[in-house]
Structures are given as C-alpha cells and as structure tokens.
C-alpha cells in the first residue's frame, strides 16, 4: 500500500496564473446550439474557462506564477534545491520542461529538476514527492509546478470533453516548518482503465499518421481525432463514485482523524455533477468544499492548487487541516490530509 507520512513539512508559498482570455461555455462554442450547450453546461457547472493563446504553453503560465513567488521577496532562488514540473502538456517531447524551467527561472544548476507525467491526480502525487524531497536534510525549498494547457488536447466538437477543460498553472514552495503536524498521503493506480481517458496517437505506440489527424464522428454525434484526447465519461464517473469515497475514508483513518476535523475538502475540479455527488455521498458540509470550476473549468492537475489559490487565499492564516483528493487519467487516484499554516499566498494573475 502506497501510504506516506511526514511531520514538520508543508506548503510555504502559493501562486497561480491563468490566461486572460475568458471563454463563455454557453455562447462561445460554435459547434453546438445554445440549447445543446446549455444542457451540458448546466450539468457540468463549468460556465467559463480560460483558454491559452496558440503560442502560450503551460510552461509560460507556470513561469508567470513562479516569478511572482520570487518577486515577493520571501523566497530565495538559491534556496530552490528541487523543481518538480507536473504536466501532460509539456513544451517538447524531450527534454523535460522542468529542466528548461530551471534555466528560465534562473535557478542554480545545483537544483534537481524533472517532469512528472500525470493529470488530475498530479497535484497530490507531486505534493507527496515534494514533501519527500523536502524531508531530506540538505534540501531547503522544493518548487512544485502544476501546469496545463488542457484546452489544446481536446476537441471542442466533442460532447464528452468539448466544454470541460481550461488552462492554468500554479507554483508552490514546499519546505520544512517545525510548527506543522503530520501529513498523510495515500496513492493508488488502476492502469486497467488506461483507455478511459487517452490521446491515442502521437506517441510511439501509435505514431501520428495523416489519418490520425482526421476528426471522426463519434456514436454520440460529436467529433474528435485520434490525436486528441477522448474520455469515457460514464466509465470515469463509475470509477470516481466507487473509488474516491473509499480513498478519502481510508486516508482519514490513516491520518487518525475524522471528517469533522477537516476544515476544507479540496477536490479535483472534475465537473459539478460528479463533485456534488461526492459531497452528498460523503455527507460533507458544502461550505467546507470550495469550488472554482465554474470560472476556470477542469484544469487537470492544476485544479486543486488553483482552488486553494483562488478560493482559500484569505482563509489559511491559522493552521487549517485540508483533505485533498485528485482522480482521473491513468486512471490514477491520490488523497492526502495536510495541515496548512500561513503560507505566502500571491494573488492569482492573468496573463
């Protein structure tokens, strides 16, 4: 069982960036009638999303977020001993974007930098890695970046995915903090369901061909190509409503706490229908479950930290216990109970 426990490690800085272009899901998708769009949008609760310009990469959003942290004067570049870049929309197939980010941010060459290829579970996995690195004696600050231009992966003509995904990035600093109590992470994988969310072509299993770029009609009437991502929404829903409540209950038990002692439950912002179902099933108080998906959509691994930056920025000045849970492409699932105490929170910026 992949269970990880830490003491005296925590988030000391948080920043986020989104594209300034606002996409209105009711009116801006020319591939669907207003009536069709409304039926989907009212169910998913994603009314607006931010869409990066064609020339803007996930790393550009990440750079803007990370730069803010260093400009705040609270964090030294020289003290950044590791940089983790979590994304499935990297700049290149190689080298890893995190390494390029080390140079772009002017971080020391003694900084360990690498990428993690995970989606909706990626913040929980990345944070666990960051805590693990920060536990080492010689490591001062770990920068955890989550960055996605997910809107570029999916077809806007697809009924399952054409209204869901938005673009964003966050940069967090993780370091030692002796005033923080214990954190517990539990991570799971279900690769048997790997084909539930997938971009089939463009890798080495199915190299790109002329045909793989052709958008084909799907049984539900929508269109996507094999180069674009697709999602088996019903399969993912079934996975989430069976596995996520179990993961959360297990994590609470491993942390020797209970849901009443958790101040905020920050879930991956999948869609409103699914998240509301989780809230009811877990019998959570809705005011303890912040949302930002109505404004930013599903931003994959960025959605949990983006919710923390946009919805909890003024609520973390005293120690708060957070339960975070990310779930999706892989399929992959991670939950954690983490205390958060007065991190430096920079305002969300638009670029």
């Amino acid at each position, binding site marked *: 069982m992949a269970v990880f426990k830490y003491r005296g490690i925590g988030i000391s800085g948080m920043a986020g960036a989104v594209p300034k272009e606002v996409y209105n899901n009711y009116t801006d998708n020319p591939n669907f009638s207003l009536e069709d769009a409304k*039926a*989907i949008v009212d*169910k998913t609760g994603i009314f607006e999303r931010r869409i990066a310009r064609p020339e803007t990469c996930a790393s550009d959003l990440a750079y803007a977020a990370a730069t803010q942290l260093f400009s705040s004067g609270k964090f030294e570049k020289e003290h950044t001993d590791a940089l983790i870049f979590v994304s499935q929309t990297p700049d290149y197939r190689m080298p890893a974007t995190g390494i390029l980010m080390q140079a772009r941010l002017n971080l020391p060459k003694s900084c360990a930098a690498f990428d993690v290829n995970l989606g909706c579970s990626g913040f929980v996995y990345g944070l666990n890695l960051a805590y693990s690195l920060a536990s080492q004696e010689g490591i001062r600050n770990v920068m955890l970046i989550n960055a996605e231009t997910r809107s570029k992966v999916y077809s806007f003509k697809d*009924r*399952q995915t054409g209204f869901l995904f938005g673009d964003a990035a966050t940069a967090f600093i993780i370091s030692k903090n002796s005033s923080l109590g214990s954190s517990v992470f539990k991570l799971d994988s279900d690769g048997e369901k790997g084909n539930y969310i997938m971009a089939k072509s463009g890798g080495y299993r199915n190299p790109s061909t002329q045909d793989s770029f052709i958008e084909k009609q799907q049984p*539900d009437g929508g269109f996507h190509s094999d180069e674009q991502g697709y999602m088996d*929404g*019903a*399969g993912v*829903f*079934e996975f989430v*409503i*069976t596995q996520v409540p179990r993961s959360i209950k297990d994590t609470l038990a491993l942390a020797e706490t209970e849901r009443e002692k958790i101040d905020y439950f920050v879930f991956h912002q999948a869609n409103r*229908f699914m998240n509301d*179902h989780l809230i*009811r*099933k877990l019998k959570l108080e809705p005011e303890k479950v912040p949302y930002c998906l109505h404004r930013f959509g599903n931003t994959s691994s960025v959605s949990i930290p983006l919710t923390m930056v946009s919805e909890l920025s003024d609520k973390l000045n005293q120690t708060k216990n957070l339960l975070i849970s990310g779930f999706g492409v892989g399929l992959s699932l991670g939950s954690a109970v983490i205390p958060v105490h007065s991190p430096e929170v920079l305002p969300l910026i638009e670029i």
Partner: protein
Amino acid sequence: MDSKFLDQLTELLEMETPVKPADKFRDYENWDSLAYLSLISFVDEEYGIVIPRDDFGKMNTVQDIIDFIKNNS
C-alpha cells in the same frame, strides 16, 4: 419500492407521462449520456448501489433496473 422508484425515475428523466416497468428506457426521447449519469448517481444515493456499466449495458427495460437493485440490495 417499485411504485416509488417509478415516480422518482419519471421525475429524474423529466418525463411527461409516468414511467412504466415494461418501458424500454433507451427509447425515451430524453435518454442520453447525461440521463444515464443522473440515473447512476440517483441509484447510488438512494440505494447505495453503483450499477456497473457492463451490467447496465445488458438492461433494456425499467423492470431490468428494478430487478438489479432488488437483487443487489
């Protein structure tokens, strides 16, 4: 359970006439992937059962759904 379930399903699927056990629910004009998600969510909340997709794929009538819930409660 049967009559309560039929009333709930009628409301859930926003049907103009009451749902009947022999109805082939996939033929409803309102039946689509969103209706499917609503149904799975509703059965999970009301009866604590997540109907697996493979099992659901074999169901044709409203009675099939009722039988599944009864057999798995």
